[in-house]
């Protein structure tokens, strides 16, 4: 601090001597080699291009607010401002670093306590009996579906599966809070959103078996669902690639003046990807109606969040991009419903992105290729599975309202189980995709090289069928 002042005093005195200027001009300005302007010239926008000036005014809404705060807090510095590109900033002579974290973590919005009772004086959007029962049924269905498909993989009937166990509230309550026109860009642990929108158990099974009825035509691994009818973009394995795409989707909806937004999901691990930064920044700058929902479930395969970031989770990153954000208890279906519903309204009516961090726990393994007991305690998993289960918690609330009984429960579970087993049997027996689907859709029209390759392969398969799996008709 002392060195700084000493330097500035010497500069001022030498410049004053050389230029015969009064002392007021140079004190507030920088000490680079630029020519000297009068105070009024420097503070005006005259020498900035009109294009830049107009942008500055648009972006200084936040800075104006900051100025007001600074003025009230800092009486001595109240009149002193610097007009850097990007808007006025108040300045201080106190050298103070912003701490790496707040004293208090951002609190988590919740409505239901662990026993499924509404916390008194909670803000939340009421949910009707019909909606609540449907939400519960779908959460339970998702749970049953996950268990049965997981077992099917274990039995070698499908090659791969990813469960959403522990995240049923995020899946279903978020879907329930959206409109069918909202375009969903999932990561891969959100099949509940597709389930809510009407994708049938048979359709899920078909994709997992890659049979003739799979809309994806058997080209991708199981769980890579997609359905244009349901406004659910096809899942791809690379992490976070959907985030900047969601910004583009939201921008398109804005341009079409649709009453809809883009909604995209990501895990805690995915927020470390460059595409997270790209997606949020683009959505904010281009003012796209996007709801970013981060499922912070504590684990990215074997990497705990303590090895993923040093911030207070994901919610604090919103402000870095100029994005409104909230942290919600992801295992509380009512809280998730309210938060997503509100975020969606903001996104659409204000044409802006919103970030939701839903705190939860990944009860299942990362996938069927993972055994999470290798890197986390079995009793930690048990704890979340039994005492912090979002399905049970919501069930208690629905039951307490007299909207659900044990008969309903056993009926739902056994019917769903039966339906799933039938769906799997049917999907397994269903014909395979015809071989031509290997070559279609690479482009809109098959190019010559693929026509040649298709002919070549057909001839080869006819000649040596024993080299190839059966059932793929040419």
């Amino acid at each position, binding site marked *: 601090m002392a060195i700084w002042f000493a330097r500035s005093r010497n500069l001022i005195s030498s410049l004053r001597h050389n230029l015969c200027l009064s002392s007021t001009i140079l004190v507030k300005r920088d000490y680079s080699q630029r020519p000297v302007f009068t105070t009024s010239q420097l503070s005006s926008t005259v020498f900035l291009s009109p*294009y830049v000036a107009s942008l500055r005014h648009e972006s200084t809404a936040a800075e104006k607010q900051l100025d007001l705060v600074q003025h009230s807090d800092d009486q001595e510095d109240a009149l002193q401002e610097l007009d850097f590109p990007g808007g006025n900033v108040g300045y201080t002579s106190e050298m103070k670093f912003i701490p790496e974290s707040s004293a208090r973590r951002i609190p988590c919005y919740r409505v239901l306590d662990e026993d499924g009772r509404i916390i008194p004086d909670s803000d939340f959007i009421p949910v009707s009996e019909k909606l609540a029962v449907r939400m519960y049924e779908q959460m339970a269905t998702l749970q049953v579906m996950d268990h049965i498909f997981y077992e099917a993989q274990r039995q070698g009937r499908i090659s791969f599966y990813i469960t959403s166990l522990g995240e049923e509230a995020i899946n279903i309550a978020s879907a329930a809070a959206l409109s069918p026109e909202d*375009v969903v*860009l999932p990561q891969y642990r959100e099949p509940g959103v597709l389930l809510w929108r009407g994708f049938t158990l048979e359709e899920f099974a078909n994709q997992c078996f890659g049979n003739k009825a*799979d*809309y*994806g*035509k058997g*080209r*991708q691994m199981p769980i*890579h669902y*997609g*359905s*244009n009818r349901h406004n659910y*973009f*096809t899942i*791809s394995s*690379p992490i976070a*690639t959907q*985030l*900047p*795409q*969601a*910004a*583009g*989707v*939201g*921008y*398109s*909806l804005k*341009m*079409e003046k649709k009453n809809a937004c*883009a909604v995209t999901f990501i895990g805690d691990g995915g927020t470390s990807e*460059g*595409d997270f*930064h*790209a*997606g949020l*920044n*683009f959505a904010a*700058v*281009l003012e796209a109606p996007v709801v970013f929902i981060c499922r912070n479930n504590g684990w990215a395969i074997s990497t705990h969040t303590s090895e993923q970031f040093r911030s207070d989770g994901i919610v604090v990153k919103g402000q870095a991009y100029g994005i409104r954000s909230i942290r919600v208890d992801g295992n509380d279906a009512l809280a998730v419903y309210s938060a997503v519903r509100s975020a969606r309204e903001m996104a659409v009516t204000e044409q802006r992105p919103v970030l939701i961090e839903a705190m939860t726990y990944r009860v299942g393994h990362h996938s069927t290729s993972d055994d999470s007991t290798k890197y986390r305690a079995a009793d930690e998993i048990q704890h979340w599975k039994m005492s912090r289960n979002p399905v049970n918690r919501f069930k208690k609330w629905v039951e307490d309202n007299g909207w659900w009984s044990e008969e309903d429960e056993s009926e739902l579970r056994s019917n769903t189980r039966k339906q799933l087993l039938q769906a799997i049997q049917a999907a397994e027996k269903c014909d395979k995709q015809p071989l031509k689907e290997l070559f*279609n*859709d*690479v*482009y*809109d029209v098959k*190019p*010559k*090289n693929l026509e040649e390759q298709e002919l070549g392969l057909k001839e080869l398969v006819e000649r040596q069928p024993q080299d190839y799996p059966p059932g793929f008709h040419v």
Partner: protein
Amino acid sequence: MAALLGRSCRKLGFLSSGHGARRSVSTETGKSLNLYSAINQALHIALDSDPRSFVFGEDVGFGGVFRCTTGLAERFGKNRVFNTPLCEQGIVGFGIGLAAMGNRAIVEIQFADYIYPAFDQIVNEAAKFRYRSGNQFNCGGLTIRAPYGAVGHGGHYHSQSPEAFFCHVPGIKVVIPRSPREAKGLLLSCIRDPNPVVFFEPKWLYRQAVEEVPEHDYMIPLSEAEVIREGNDITLVGWGAQLTIMEQACLEAEKEGISCELIDLKTLLPWDKETVEASVKKTGRLLISHEAPITGGFGAEISATILERCFLKLEAPVSRICGLDTPFPLVFEPFYMPTKNKILDAIKTTVNY
């Protein structure tokens, strides 16, 4: 050095399409335009003809660092022509999202040298978008434009020719124009093609190349190579700015009695094998030239394919005159480049094999 000065001092007149050209547009007159103006015209036409088309990227608002987007923001508004943050993966990802919703997203990457952050979005997302969804979704409306190639002083990061990386990706198209008139027609085809396309513009030609460009809306088909000079002794294949160098070599070879057939490939993926094959079956000799480093360059694909198809007709090995296997150097550029004389030497060696 002399070659370099020669390049920089001359305004290059354009590769006459007079020799054996098949395109009717090449005989039309138009306005004398350079490459960036021709591209600018194409963009104006594209945005005018489809209200759901957008142009965005770094610095496109004021006209772009190469002036290709001049006048677009003023004419079509900032909602359709806008600057993006400095983030190639975001630019392409955002473009994929826009295209997936049925819009035409014409994206600019400021230099091909900076396209790599977007490589994941291009290869893993754009190229596979239609296929992986079973044709429920597609991002065919996406066109990525990027200036590529040597410029005389660009060094490692303003001179690259990365086309080979993209030619290895089923699901996208790769197109490289040789001149202003070609660029306008090809770019309009790329924009309107229902597949994601990467369009590399030879930055060396932005100002240097001047040609008569018809003012109306016209398209030049993709995946059709053009014989721009007929000959009998050897076939030369190239694309982009390299064709001017190759043509000079052809002119000099002619003085020594060698008749060269010169082909502009135009679309590298999917490429027109039939035109090249027919030519080599006639001449029996092939020379490929590109600025990109020789190892793993696209010339290797052309060579391997032609060998398969024309082996018995070949009188000599396929020759490749390309950049050296080094990062693109600054002071050594004249040594690195596949120059006219390197090509001429190879023509003679091949013919005398």
